[in-house]
Structures are given as C-alpha cells and as structure tokens.
C-alpha cells in the first residue's frame, strides 16, 4: 500500500518563524505536490516537483518555497510564517501518468494543520 507520510499532524508556530513541513513517500513516485486546504476554497496547489531538485510553482506560491533533495522527500518551507498561512497543508505523490485508470492514482498524506499565532 502506498504511504505518504507528513511529519506532523498539528503544528503551532509563531509569526516570523521559519517553518518546515516534511513529506515522505515510499513508492518511488516521480511527482510530488503541496496543497493548501481552506474552508470554502477547496485545495489550492502551492508547489510541485516532477523530479529530484526540480520544482514548479503552483497557483499560490507566494510566501512558500520547497526542497526536493531526494526522490522520496518533498519539503515545504515557510520562510517567515504569517497568520494568513494558518491552514491545512496536504502533500501528495503520484507516479508517471497517475491520471490514467491503468495506473496508481495520486496519493495524499493525512495533512498537517498549521496554526500561526
């Protein structure tokens, strides 16, 4: 069974702190994603990566950066946390062509609920 593990389920940080959210997948997937989930807004893509050391901006990258030094790990970094970054963060991973019904789909972690005070 595919596992996408997010290091923290709940996190409380102070404004201005540097925050690292870690995500690890165990299926050798090429593609990894970070989403932010807010009530009434659904899930919005922050960043994604389709290979080691590769990264692409999603729809809302401002205030975030990412790191992918190893294939299995994709980190989301809040350089200087702000209260408007209080949210649920979901990591996901998928192999090549994960949209096709012939392949394993996109898999999600259980989310990290981050509160910035």
């Amino acid at each position, binding site marked *: 069974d595919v596992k996408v593990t997010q290091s923290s389920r709940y996190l409380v940080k102070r404004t201005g702190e540097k925050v690292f959210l870690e995500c690890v997948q165990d299926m050798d997937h090429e593609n990894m*994603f970070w989403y932010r989930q807010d009530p009434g807004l659904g899930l919005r893509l922050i960043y994604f990566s389709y290979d080691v050391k590769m990264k692409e901006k999603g729809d809302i990258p401002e205030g975030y950066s990412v790191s992918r030094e190893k294939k299995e790990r994709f980190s989301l970094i809040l350089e200087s946390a702000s209260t408007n970054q209080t949210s649920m963060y979901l990591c996901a991973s998928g192999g090549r*062509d994960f*949209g096709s019904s012939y392949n394993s789909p996109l898999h999600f972690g259980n989310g990290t609920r981050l509160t910035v005070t």
Partner: protein
Amino acid sequence: AQTVTQSQPEMSVQEAETVTLSCTYDTSENNYYLFWYKQPPSRQMILVIRQEAYKQQNATENRFSVNFQKAAKSFSLKISDSQLGDTAMYFCAFMKHWGGGADGLTFGKGTHLIIQP
C-alpha cells in the same frame, strides 16, 4: 487555466437514498482526466472514481458512478444506496493529460455530503 465549479456547498440525504453531486469545469484542453475525491473527518483524501476524457463510457465503481458530458463540461457523481460512511467532503478535480511533466490537480471548492440515519 482550468477552473472547477461545485455549486452545492452542502447536501443532506437519508440513508439508502441516491444522491447526485454536480461538477462543471472549464478548459480549452481536449485530453484530460477528471476525478472525484472523498475526504472524511479523518482528513485522508480518498480517490472515489476517475474518468479519462477520451473515454465515452461513464466510469463506475460499485455504488459510485459518473455522468460525464464532455460537450457540456459536466462531471456529476451519483452515489446509490447511500451509507452513513459516505458522509464526507467530496471534491471534483481536473488534470490536463500528462505529457512529460505533471501540473497536479485543480480542485473544486467541495461539497459537504451528510448521510442521515
């Protein structure tokens, strides 16, 4: 850019009834994938069903089926014989046909489905 619209923020039905969740999308792409994901209170995102746009036949998975109308850009989810365990947020999602790099999924804002005993 693609957009996904779920016009029903919340729905409530009695156990054993059939319920249909609506989803429309906007895209200029011809090849793409569509998904329905379920998110119960545990926060785990679970793939319910997926559809490749090039396939005319509607996808089905046990009690779950879709009505895919490509010309109308509509992708509704039908749940038959609804069960208490179907209570969850349901997200409709779109993805361009993957061709060398993945862009991730574009999600709707979600429909909160409540199954009443």
